Structures are given as C-alpha cells and as structure tokens.
C-alpha cells in the first residue's frame, strides 16, 4: 500500500513533485560543479607549486631577509666594474666592447648555511632534505667609450642612478659613461640559476620535472661545469644539449633539458647547475637560499614545521598550505571565485531548495488535512502517516538528487571539455620574501634591460633596477604557469550531493510528517468538502 499510495501521490500531484525535484536538482548540480571545480583549482594550485618546489616537498625553509639597510649586504647597489682589460677596444679607438656576466644571490634573499641543512635533516619527522642556492646570472654587454679621462684613467665605473654612487665615476667623468655624455650603448640580460644538490633526487625542485633531452644531474656531476636547462628557456634562447652557456664568465656544457611534468608550465629556474659549483662561482661558499623538506608522513607536517621554526632562527618555515597563498594570477582569482561565490551560491541554492521542499510539503499536508484525518479515522497509525509523508518527500529529494547528479556531471563534463586555462604565478620563497611589492608584479623570468646612453639616465634606472627591490627578487624567482583546469569528479562528491538532496527530502518529510501526526482524527468529520 505504501508504495502504491506514494506512486499515486507523486504521479497525481506532479507539479509539486516537479517543483521540489527541480529545486533539489539545481542545488545538487551546483554542489557537484562547485566542488569539482574547486577540487580542480586546488589540483592546479598543487601542480603550480609542484612545478616550482617539486612533488615531494612538504616544507620549505628560507632565511628571513634582513632589511635593505641591514648588514647582509645583499641589498646594495647592483654594480658592474670594468677594468681596462675587460673589453676589446674597437677599431676607432674611442669605444670598447664589454661583455661580463656575474652570478649573484637573488636580490633580497637571505642565505642559510650547510649547518642549517644538517640541523633540518636531523629533525624528527623529516624524511629527507636538500638545499638549493637560487642565483641570478646577469650579463652586461655593450659598448662603452674608452675612459681615458676617467678618475684614474684606467677604469670606468657604472652604477645605476637612483642610489648614491660610490664609484663616483659618473660625477667625475663627464666625457663618457652612462649619463649619456659620451655615446655608449649597452644591454643587460639576466636569467635564473638554481644550484641543486646532484645527489638528492627524493625532494627538491627537480623531483617534479621530466627529462626531455640529454641527462639529468647526478652524483658524478659534483664539481663539474655542467648545466641542465628549462625547456622553455632553452627554446627561447635557442640552446640545445651539447651547447654551452656562460655563467659568471664560465662556460657550462648543457647536458640536459627538463620540462615540468605538466608541459605547459615552466620549472623553478631557467638553468640548473651543481650546488657546489654555484656556491663557488657566486662566492657564497656553504650558502643556501632555501631548504626543501619532505616529512615522514602528512600528519607530521605541522609538528615538523613547529620544530624547525624553534631550531632555526631568522628563517621562514612554510608548508605547502602556506605556499598555496603565494599562487597568484587567474588561477588564484578562480580559486577565490569558487571559494567565495561558488560556495555561497551553493549554500544559498541549497537553502532555497530545502525551504521550497519544506514549504511545499507543509502546504501539501495542510491541503490533505481531511485525507490524513480520514486515514486516522479508519485506523491508520501516526507512524504510518508520518512514514507516508516522509517517504513522499524523500522520493522527491531522490528524484531531485538523481536529476541533479546527471545535470551536475554534465556541467563538470562541459567544464572539462572547455578546460579553461588558468595562469598561475608562483612567487617562490626567495622572491616572495625579498621581492617586496614589486615581486608580485609577475616580472618575466628573464628580465632584459637595455638602454642607450643619450636616452637619459631615467631609462637606465629602470633597466637596472638600481637599489629598488623589484629586480632581483621578482625577476629571479617568480614562475608563471598556464594550467588547464580539470575538474575531477569523485564518487564521494556525487554521493554527498545526492545525500544532501535526500537530507532535504527527509527534513521536509519530517516537518510535514510532524504536522500530519498532530492532526486530530475528528478533523476528518469536521472539514466537509
């Protein structure tokens, strides 16, 4: 009787059934789509992070940089000094061509030591740890006048304007130099270099890459002038395995090309070289810019973070969750859109659907007062009547849930077919900490600045970045990645969404049933059609 009565009710009161089911379906579909998309965005964030920090990295440790006026010395002016022997004198005898490259710790980054790494590795809960040295290679090339009338006659100094020059050459050599008095032209190009430990492969920036050509760095590369290039950098610079690349006036043999596992994104740096070589060339013996840590288990991460913060002074210890907030670009906009609008919209629609179901059920019970009173009068128990009302609502919720699941799956399918591309800018720890406000501006990994003397010093100031915080920090460590959004569908999401619809039906049924149970059987006699 229960089933037949239920079928007849739903079938004969189709409008109510359809309205309740549509409300539920809408809510369920929205919950499924929003959940899938937000899971997709989270995946994309993890992917963006993995391309920079490596797959197994749970925690990164970086030095908290000192103030620019502090004592670490990294905040000073960027300066190229050219001795008389540095260039080749051109045929006219008045200018010389210069080409000098230099490897420096990314501006604004503090450094850690090998001792710090040892401390980290010994900490309980740490599975493995590796240190990297993040550097910027800047190459200055161009033509300068010969400085025969310079301060001491043999050396021209150039310092970016906008800071007090300690070489003083621009003041005292009015006949030549970057102030434009003598007609010079030059360019500066920089790219990011990461010194990585060739013996570590469990954790670190190279754990998330795939080798697209040549070989990776391994134990035998310790102390050798070999480099592995990021594939998109190699493409831009037209470099291949077997070519050489010059870092700090040292030629490196390119032995391999790597790409991020997701081919559309860039890896953490443009060039990877053995850590010890990087330390020697940059003059930063024993120095590291960050330490990558993997924990024994996901449950340990917070404890390890706390322990590391206690043991290491002046450092920033970030977990993947902390780092996720450093992802910027349309990915993070999508993330907050889904998190805010999507979540609120689903809650709103869900609440509306629940309300519709409850109100319709109550009004249905009120309309059927005489019907339920009659059933009570002929002996139906309260339980049976409550069950009937609840059953009807539950089935309406179930229909809504089923339709909603289908619509939601279709919605997710459409999202995945369209696969909107999201760009993610990840400021790695060095850039994030050191870059100041400019670092977030998302400067391209390779910053090239050129200025022709005579254009005025203002432009040169822009190119060099002088003492400003933007150049070293932002340019050297931010990495932009394009990730196609893939919204994953899990059985769990579908089950939860349909469960919500059932809950809505049950709630409406419980409230409606409660109303029906309070009807007095005498009402059946009283309310005459």
């Amino acid at each position, binding site marked *: *009787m229960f089933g*037949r*009565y239920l079928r*007849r*009710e739903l*079938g*004969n*009161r189709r409008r109510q059934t359809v309205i309740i089911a549509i409300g539920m379906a809408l809510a369920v579909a929205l919950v499924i789509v929003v959940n899938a998309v937000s899971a997709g965005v989270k995946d994309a964030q993890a992917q963006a992070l993995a391309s920079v920090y490596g797959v197994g990295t749970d925690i990164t440790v970086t030095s908290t940089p000192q103030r620019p006026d502090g004592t670490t010395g990294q905040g000073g002016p960027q300066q190229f000094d050219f001795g008389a022997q540095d260039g080749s004198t051109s045929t006219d005898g008045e200018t010389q061509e210069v080409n000098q490259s230099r490897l420096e710790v990314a501006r604004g980054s503090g450094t850690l030591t090998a001792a710090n790494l040892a401390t980290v590795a010994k900490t309980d809960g740490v599975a493995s740890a590796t240190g990297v040295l993040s550097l910027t290679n800047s190459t200055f090339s161009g033509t300068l006048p010969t400085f025969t009338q310079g301060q001491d006659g043999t050396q021209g100094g150039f310092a970016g304007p906008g800071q007090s020059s300690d070489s003083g050459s621009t003041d005292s050599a009015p006949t030549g130099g970057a102030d434009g008095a003598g007609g010079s032209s030059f360019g500066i190009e920089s790219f990011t270099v990461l010194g990585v430990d060739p013996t570590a492969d469990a954790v670190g920036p190279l754990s998330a890459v795939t080798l697209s050509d040549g070989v990776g760095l391994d134990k035998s590369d310790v102390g050798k002038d070999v480099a592995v290039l990021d594939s998109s950098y190699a493409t831009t610079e037209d470099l291949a395995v077997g070519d050489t690349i010059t870092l700090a006036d040292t030629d490196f043999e390119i032995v391999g090309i790597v790409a991020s596992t997701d081919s559309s994104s860039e890896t953490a740096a443009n060039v990877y070289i053995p850590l010890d070589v990087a330390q020697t060339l940059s003059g930063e013996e024993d120095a590291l810019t960050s330490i990558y840590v993997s924990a024994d288990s996901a449950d340990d991460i917070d404890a390890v973070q706390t322990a590391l913060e206690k043991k290491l002074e002046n450092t920033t210890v970030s977990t993947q969750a902390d780092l996720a907030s450093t992802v910027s670009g349309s990915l993070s906009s999508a993330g907050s859109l889904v998190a805010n609008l999507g979540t609120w919209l689903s809650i709103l629609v869900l609440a509306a659907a629940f309300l519709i179901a409850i109100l319709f059920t109550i009004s249905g019970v009120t309309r059927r007062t*005489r*019907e339920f*009173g*009659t*059933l*009570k*009068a*002929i*002996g*139906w*128990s*309260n339980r*049976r009547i409550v069950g009937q009302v609840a059953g009807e609502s539950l089935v309406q919720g179930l229909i809504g849930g089923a339709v909603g699941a289908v619509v939601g799956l279709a919605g997710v399918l459409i999202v995945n077919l369209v696969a909107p591309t999201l760009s993610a800018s990840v400021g790695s720890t060095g850039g994030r900490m050191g870059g100041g406000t400019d670092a977030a501006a998302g400067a391209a990994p390779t910053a090239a600045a050129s200025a022709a003397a005579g254009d005025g010093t203002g432009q040169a100031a822009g190119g060099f970045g002088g003492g400003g915080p933007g150049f070293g920090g932002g340019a050297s460590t931010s990495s932009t990645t394009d990730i196609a959004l893939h919204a994953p569908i899990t059985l769990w999401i579908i089950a939860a969404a349909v469960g919500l619809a059932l809950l809505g039906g049950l709630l409406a049924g419980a409230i409606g049933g409660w109303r029906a149970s309070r009807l*007095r*059987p*005498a009402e*059946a*006699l*009283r*309310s*005459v*059609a």
Partner: protein
Amino acid sequence: MYQLTDVSRVYKQKNRTVTALKDVTLTIPDGQMVAIQGPTGGGKSTLLQMLGALDRPTNGAIELDGTVLTKLGDAKLGSVRGSDIGIVFQGFNLIPTLTAQENVETALVPQKAPAAERAQRARAALESVGLGERAEHLPGELSGGQQQRVAIARALVKEPRVLLADEPTGNLDEETRDEIMELLEGLWRDRGLTLIIVTHDSAVARRAQRRLHIKQGHVREVA
C-alpha cells in the same frame, strides 16, 4: 454494545466554552439501528465522534463491548477504529489519488492483511455495494452516489461490529439517497451490524428501530 455513562464534551476556545454534550447516559445494544436527529449545532457529530473513538469526552466513560474506550491511549484507540468501527462521512472522504479499489484497501492497512488477501477482500466489498465494475476508477470519475458506495465498502471491508454514518445522504439527491439507505439497511440486516446514522432527514430516520434527538447537548428518546 455501547455503554455511555455521564458523557460530557466541552469545547474550550479562547474566550468561550461550548458544551456540545451534557451528561449523556445511553446504552446501545448490539445489532440495533439508531437514527440521531436534532437541530444544527445540537451535538450530533460530537456524539458520533465519541462513539467512533475519534475523540475523548471531557467527562464520563464510554464502553464498547466491555472495553472502556476512555481509558485507552491514542494508539489503542486507533486500533479499535481499525478493527471494530466502520465510519461513513457526509463528504465521502475518499483519497482522491487512489482508485476505488485502493481506497477500500486502505481500511485493511491497520490490520496488516497480506496484499493478495487485501485486494480480494476489497474487490468483494466493492461488489457487495454494486461497484465491481468501477474498481479501477478514481473518485473524481465517479458520481456522488458511487463515491458514497465506495466509502461504505471501505467502512465495511474490515467487517466491523459497528457502522457509524454522519449524514451519509446529506450530499446526495433524493433518488440516490434512497438507494444508499436501502444499501445500508440491507447490509445492517444481513450482517447483524450495529448501525448508527446521524440524519436531518425524517424519511431516513423513520426506517430506524430507535430514534434519538439531541438538542444543546441533551439526548432524549423519540417515541
């Protein structure tokens, strides 16, 4: 057999109380056919609700075949209604979404009869009121007289000892009224029921063995 002792029913509303029944003492033996008459608002329906175990008196005791209804809880009272008492309403009170057959079957639900037995008994009840052909029709597809026949079948399918009817012909034309009355009388005679009918209609009342008149809650016998 009904035994009512000093039964009163007072309806309390916010600022007034209505005494619908006042100290009614009454015995109705098994198998009797009783007509209840009286002016509107006199308390006829209230008395029928007491007899039908649909409501409790404010005071007094009601006994049906030795069971003191006034001492029973709601659930027990419900099962008395489900097994011993059949009720026919003025407005038919059929479930609009269920067929005639299904409407009749609802009366067997409290007895938890198996589906096959339920269907077969409902079918027999419909045939006994002359509606075997219309079993699969919805109430909306039946005339008033036919709907009341379905309601009577529903009241009788559980084979109750008592059949109560509150103005069963009030919504019907004269010809149909006579049909329904003949049907009820026939069933009463054949099955040895106690039949209690509330009616405004003296033509109906005259068919009864015994006539009661209720006015302002007081019951008196009509000679």
